[in-house]
Every structure is written in C-alpha cells, then in structure tokens.
C-alpha cells in the first residue's frame, strides 16, 4: 500500500524523522486555517500517489492568506496524470540550502536491504542513476544484523554529506531504517532530504510503501487503508476479501491462484481481447465466495463477457459450480459466462452445471478455447452496442 506524502510524513514522525510543520486539508478554508497556524510562507502541495505534481502546478508557495486561498482553490480538484486531487498538505516553507536523497528498500536479487544515499537529490533518482551513477552511494544491509550509527556514518561520509551535519544525517538514516523495518515498509524514500539554510537536516518529501502482509500487527494502518484506493471496484473487492486489480478491458476474469489469474490475462490478450480485471479467488474457495466474485464482476459496467478459469487443486470444482449456480439464481448477470474447469472434482462440477448450460453459460474444455470464446462474445456484445 502506497501512502500519500502527508501520511508518509506522519509515519516518519513516529520514528523521530524531522519533517516540516503542517497539516492536511480537504477544503480551501481548512487549507487557509492550517496555513495561518503553521505560519507564512507556506507550501501548498497536492496529495496524489503519482510523480510530477510540481511540473503539473500542484505545488505552490504562498506568502499570504490570500495566496494560500488562491492556490488551494486551484489545486483542489486538479487532475494530475489521471489522479484527482482530493487533499492538500499545507506546510511551513523551508529555506533550502541543499537537496539530497535517501532511501531503504529490499534488493530482491541480493536478498538484502539496500540503502541509497546521494547528495544529488530533488530530481528523479532514476535520472541520477542514468546520468551520474557515481553520485549514488549504494550499501547493502543484512536484515539479520540491523543498521548501526557507525555504518550510517560511513555512508554519509562516502556520499559527501557536509561534514558539520554528518552526525545528524547518520542519526536520521538510523531512524529511517528503524521506520523501514519496525514500520514494515517495502520502501521508505526521502527526496529531497534537505539541508536548511540554518543548518538543519529534514525530510521535505516522504514516499512510503507499506507491506500489506504486515497489516495484522499494525492496527494503526486502518486509516491509511481507508484512503488507499478510489477505484470503487477495488473498494468493493476488498470488502469481499477478494484479491482484485481493476484494469481497462471488457473481459471480466475470475481464476484461482495468482499465477493462473495472470496467465488468464495473458491468454485473453493473445486471443485478441483485453481483461477488465485481475481476480484471484484463492485456494479452497467455496460456493459463496465464487458467487460473490461473480457479483463483483457483474457490477463493472465495462464487462461484456466473464471468463472463469479454474484449475482445482485445493479448490474443488463442484464448489465452484455450485457458486455459479447460486449466482445465476441470485444475480441478474448482464454478461455471458465462459467457464473452464479442470482438476479436483471437475467431472462433478460439470454435472452440476449440465442443466444450466445456455447461451449465457458456456463450458469450454481448455483455457485457450475458453479465452477465445470469451473474447469473441465480448466483441459480439460490443457490435450490438
């Protein structure tokens, strides 16, 4: 789960990482109130989970309440690369002397944590990696050992951080690592990490990705989860306990297992179609979950046909079949279903469905045949408008 900047900064504060004084606003009046309380000049920043908001006009400096009001009004509701700005972060402006970069993430190939530190901050780190790779200090950290202040001192020295703030920066890195590990993050990134004109080091931006698997030990993440997605389909899927990703096509997908679901997207594309979603009903799904998945797909107005691709392992095909029968009875299905059933109890499953086969429910023998049929049916429905 990616956090908004303001959530990332609030998360950083818990680990004693210095951030600017500020507040989050959902209205112009609220933005001005926060600006008044943190003191001018302030920066009004669009909260979107996408880069390039500065260039898009989503970050503005305001020296007076009038300016704050004007910027807040302009930025709220703005569209930045397809993301509508619903929230603002208003913080006291910082006098910047230098802009640096710091992040911790997992290096999957090395199976170790990776610190990246650079005195070239404030620009995309990928850009620095391309044009001036020497400017990035990369240090592996063994997750079984942890990260010490002396390791951090070595890194800041190597990176060329100003001598007078090395101790302070090293301390910040140790706190950032603690936030990364104890805070169960997949990524913590500060860009820019700034040196202020009065000689302080602090995080001017915050990019934090939380590890969804650690949700069980972070009840405080509830508030982040509440603002995680604006896609209504994804919100609904989450409530139903379904593993769902919304996409742009018109063939609704239901499969069991993440790999099989991804593969189903692939074969739909190879058959000339395009998937409306990724949906993994998981292992051991029962009839109720299957019916719920169909109901969810049915609520997506883009969907023109539904492809159900099941290879029964732990999941029993007779349960899947029962779920489909249940959905046929309870849900007014707008699109035809094309089904492929293989594996555990596939015969029993097909028998359960035998009486329900129609032009609204077709059964195909293989995954490829089923994909072709589903794509063809979506296209037919399309031409009929």
């Amino acid at each position, binding site marked *: 789960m990616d956090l908004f900047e303001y959530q990332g900064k609030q998360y950083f504060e818990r680990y004693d990482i210095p951030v600017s004084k500020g507040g989050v606003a959902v209205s112009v009046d609220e933005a001005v109130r926060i600006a008044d309380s943190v003191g001018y000049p302030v920066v009004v920043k669009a909260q979107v989970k996408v880069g390039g908001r500065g260039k898009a006009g989503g970050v503005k400096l305001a020296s007076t309440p009038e300016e704050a009001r004007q910027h807040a009004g302009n930025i709220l509701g703005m569209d930045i690369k397809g993301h509508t700005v619903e929230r603002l972060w208003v913080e006291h402006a910082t006098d910047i002397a230098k802009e640096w970069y710091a992040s911790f993430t997992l290096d999957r190939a090395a199976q170790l944590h990776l610190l990246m530190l650079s005195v070239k901050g404030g620009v995309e780190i990928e850009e620095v990696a391309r044009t001036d790779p020497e400017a990035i200090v990369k240090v592996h950290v063994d997750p079984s050992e942890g990260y010490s202040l002396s390791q951090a001192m070595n890194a800041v020295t190597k990176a060329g951080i100003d001598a007078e703030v090395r101790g302070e920066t090293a301390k910040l890195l140790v706190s950032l690592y603690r936030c990364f590990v104890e805070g169960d993050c997949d990524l913590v990134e500060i860009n820019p990490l700034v040196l202020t004109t009065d000689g302080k080091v602090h995080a001017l931006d915050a990019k934090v990705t939380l590890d969804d698997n*650690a949700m069980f030990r972070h009840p405080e993440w509830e508030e982040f989860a509440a603002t995680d997605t604006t896609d209504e389909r994804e919100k609904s899927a989450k409530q139903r306990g379904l593993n769902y990703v919304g996409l742009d096509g018109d063939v609704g997908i239901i499969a069991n297992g993440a790999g099989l679901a991804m593969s189903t997207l*692939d074969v739909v594309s190879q058959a000339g179609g395009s998937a409306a979603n990724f949906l993994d009903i998981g292992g051991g799904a029962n009839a109720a979950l299957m019916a719920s998945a169909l109901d969810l797909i049915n609520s997506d107005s883009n969907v023109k046909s539904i492809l159900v691709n099941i290879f029964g392992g732990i999941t029993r095909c007779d349960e899947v079949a029962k779920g489909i029968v249940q959905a046929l009875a309870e849900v007014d299905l707008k699109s035809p279903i094309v089904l492929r059933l293989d594996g555990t109890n596939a015969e029993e499953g097909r028998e359960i469905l035998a009486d329900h086969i129609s032009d609204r429910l077709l059964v195909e023998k293989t995954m490829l045949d089923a994909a072709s049929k589903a794509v063809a049916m979506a296209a037919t429905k399309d031409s009929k408008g």
Partner: protein
Amino acid sequence: MSIFVDENTTVIVQGLTGSQGRFHGLRNRDYGTKVAAGVTPGKGGTDVDGIPVYDSVKEAVEATGAIASFVVVPPRGAAEAILEAASAGISLVVCITEGIPAQDEARTVNILKRDFPTTRLIGPNCPGIISPGKCNIGITPGNIALPGGPVGVVSRSGTLTYQALHELSQQKVGQTTCVGIGGDPVPGTSFVDCLAAFEQDPETRAVMMIGEIGGSAEESAAEFISTSMTKPVVAYIAGQTAPPGRRMGHAGAIVSGNSGTAQGKMDALSAAGVRVAKNPTEAGEIMVDIVRSL
C-alpha cells in the same frame, strides 16, 4: 532420481493440529509420504489420526529422526517455526504459508544463510515439493503428477504449476520432481538452486520453469542456463499483460518501473537458449515435443 526429497524422506508437520495442517498433512501421508510426527506447542502427547504430536521440533526429531519439516503455520508464527526447525537440525523446510511480512522473511532467510547454511527452505507462499510416486510435501494434488520422469518442474506459482503438471501428465510425460519456489519477494530456494540440482540429477532430462513478473530471479536463471546447463529448458512467464506498479496477487509479482517485466525475462531466457512459450499450454506442447525427441 529426484531432487531434495525421495521415498525415504521422513517428514514432520509443524501445525499438524490446525485445520490446514491436518488436511494437507494427512493427504501427504495418504500419498505415501513418510509423515512421522506433528508439532504444536502445548499439544504434545496427543495425536492426529495416529500421527504423534510433540511440543517442539527438537522432541519430534529426536523421536523420529525426521530430516524434513512441512510448515503449515499462520503468518505471525511462520518465521519462528522455520527457525525452530533449522535449529533442531532439519535439513529441508517446506513452508506454504502465504502472507508472511517481508521484513520477517528477509530476516529469516538471512539467519538461515548465516547460522544454518545446510538447511534448505522451500517457499514460503508455495505449493511445496512433489517427487511423483515417492514423496509429496505441501498442497500439490498428487493425482495430477505422473511418476517416472524425465521432466523436472520449477515454478513461482501454485495453480499454474498444477496446470503445467496436468499438461504434461495428460500427454503421458512424467516428472522427476516438481518444486514450487513460491511467489514471495525473498524465497528460500531460487530457480538457480533448482536448475543446478536438476542438471545434476541423471533422471531429469529436461526442465520446465514457470516464472512471473517481479524481481530478477528469471534473469539470474537465464544467466545460469547459458553458462552451466546442458539440459533443455522450456519456460513460461506469467503476467505479460500486467500493468506496472500493481501487485498481481503474489507479494513478489510486481513490475517496478521498467524492471521485472515479463518481456525482459522472456528476452533474457530466449537469449540463453531457452524455448519460451507464450502460455502454459504451449509450454506443455513444446516440452512434450522435446521429450519425444530425446
């Protein structure tokens, strides 16, 4: 032969008294796997359908001489369970648990490397390992695998592995061993580990690998194949149409920027001489052709 397990592998099940542990543990025993004991702290002295349960892995190992452990423990206790097995001398730990926090996993895998270098962890978040007709540790439905070889299978996915086994078995092409290495970001066993073992195994004559988006394990496999592998390899990579920045079900299945794409992996494998299929069915067909021409 087979890799990592065989007909003599004696297994304990950590979490045997839970509903999942009981279901899969007994299925593994029914398949013919030597399931000697279960471990659940506080339930020592009881049994599950005749299989004795101990309080600790150490006691279970002392009583049975088991060398392998099947970990069916919920995410919050799984990392501890893996380390308990390793410290009790278990040499093969198979962990199917999905949803272990990435920080726990990274720490555990590195502790294993440092303190228990002879212990192999398969998974987490995997279907397990099956050597058809000999040993099945995990959740793979045994009936879809066909004994006798000559194909070795290694995969990051569960259901897609079943699909692959099914494609081969239907064509009467058997498997030596099928290893599910799992869909998490820090797996205990890699493609390269499995490819190296299959290369050494005289009964394995060809290998099918099933990868997916995210990370660079397939690229590392391509490197290994081009330098160290003589046996033919067929590959399929799932997620060719997955959008960047979205996690596709598995914790490790995510394209980050331009890295971890299916196309990048397919190109690397092709360049290493691997026959790359565009879907699992085609992978099965290519493998059947290869086996018939061996």
